[in-house]
């Protein structure tokens, strides 16, 4: 299901372009809306969420999928933590559905998926590690780097139990928008993957927009 946002980009309090291969980490306050724009299309935004007050309580793919009884994320999806708290909700989306099964690329999994000599190529997990090391006031480390959301990725599950990496449903300028249900740390890796046809072997920029909180 697609539902455009009613928010005006010119009214956003924050705008930032994230080039491919780079990360973004910051706190988004309860009631704030944040939008991730797939600027040129078919890019992957690998995203992790943590409770800002209690970072050990973090986004959980298994609890999120199980409680909504559906493996895809879209408008209305509540992004749940390991303790069952709602961290954020998807309130607008011009794509239709997003993956949360495929995880992030890592140098090590690239060596398995593609070739052993790919182990030195840049990967999302490296961006996550650099982000938490350089922003250590969040007290996050490898322990906290768990399974993520892949906004704009399309990974269909078949009735027979197969997993496909299909062409994306996204396109230039499409976006997904979330409302933070509590103060959350948002960590995004703009995926640098060069081995997967899902982005036509061409990683491209994302843009982040944040609007002020609707909570008085």
């Amino acid at each position, binding site marked *: 299901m697609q539902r455009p946002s009613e928010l005006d980009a010119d009214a956003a309090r924050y705008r930032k372009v994230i080039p491919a291969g780079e990360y973004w980490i910051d706190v988004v306050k309860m009631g704030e809306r944040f939008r991730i724009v797939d600027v040129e299309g078919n890019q992957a935004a690998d995203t992790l969420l943590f409770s800002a007050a209690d970072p*050990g309580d973090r986004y959980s793919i298994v609890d999120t999928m199980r409680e909504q*009884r*559906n493996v895809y994320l879209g408008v209305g999806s509540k992004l749940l933590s390991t303790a069952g708290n709602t961290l954020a909700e998807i309130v607008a989306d011009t794509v239709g559905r997003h993956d949360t099964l495929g995880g992030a690329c890592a140098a090590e999994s690239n060596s*398995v998926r593609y070739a052993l000599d790919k182990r030195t190529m840049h990967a999302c997990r490296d961006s996550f590690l650099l982000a938490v090391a350089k922003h250590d006031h969040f007290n996050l480390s490898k322990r906290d780097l768990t399974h993520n959301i892949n906004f704009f990725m399309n990974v269909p599950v078949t009735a027979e139990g197969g997993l496909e990496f299909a062409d994306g449903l996204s396109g230039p300028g499409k976006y997904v928008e979330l409302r933070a249900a509590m103060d959350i740390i948002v960590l995004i890796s703009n995926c640098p993957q060069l081995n997967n046809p899902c982005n036509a072997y061409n990683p491209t920029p994302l843009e982040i927009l944040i609007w002020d909180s609707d909570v008085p």
Partner: protein
Amino acid sequence: MSNEAVFHEALIEGGKHWSLTLRSGTVLRLVDVNGGANVGMLFYNPYNLLERYNAPDTLKCQHTFKLTKGHCLYSDMGRIFCSVIDDSVGWHDTVCGNSNKALVTRRWGQKTYQRWRNDWTQNGHDSFLVEGGKYGLGRRDLAANVNWFSKVTVADTGDMTFDASNSRAGDFVDLRFEMDTLVLLHTCPHPLNPAPDYPRAPIRIQLRKSAPVQDDDYCRNSRPENIRGFENTELYRQCACPALGD
């Protein structure tokens, strides 16, 4: 399949938890004694507990949503904890996570230890916290777990359905460990099990030595990715693991 003798056997009742460290070359057989079992399981490198089972890597490396014979269970470091060398079931879940206290209370009601003693309604999440705590692991170390014997199918819409008829009495799955591995397990119900009463399905555990892995090994060759996964694991075993492990 290995014909080596079983050197340890144990019955685990439903709704319980356990943990054990297994050396590479060990085969762990899980047997569903009465049918309808669920075994939640997590895997860690005992010499570096930050290396843990990674379900998304396991699924995407093998282009699968289910686990069955031929599949390898990957760590986040591109290495293989264990291979599924035999399986009479055909489908095991690794995306639904655990029951937790709130879910068990909502669906089946909470039976306290005070009143029910060891027939209380234990849940999978707390079970992992207890077993992990024995090795210094906490909630930040948990990850998506396997639910052996449980099947959840997905429709075109993405909707998930639990299949209550998946596993029958006597069904089994054999895991051959490719590196030394800390295994946390519980026998609490699958979180989507709709049974009217808290299910308590026992399992039997058998341990035996495996035959050496040959170049034509079924799991190693089930996908080209797994050949590389075995190479990563062998490199680690040769270079790092013995020095740390002995």
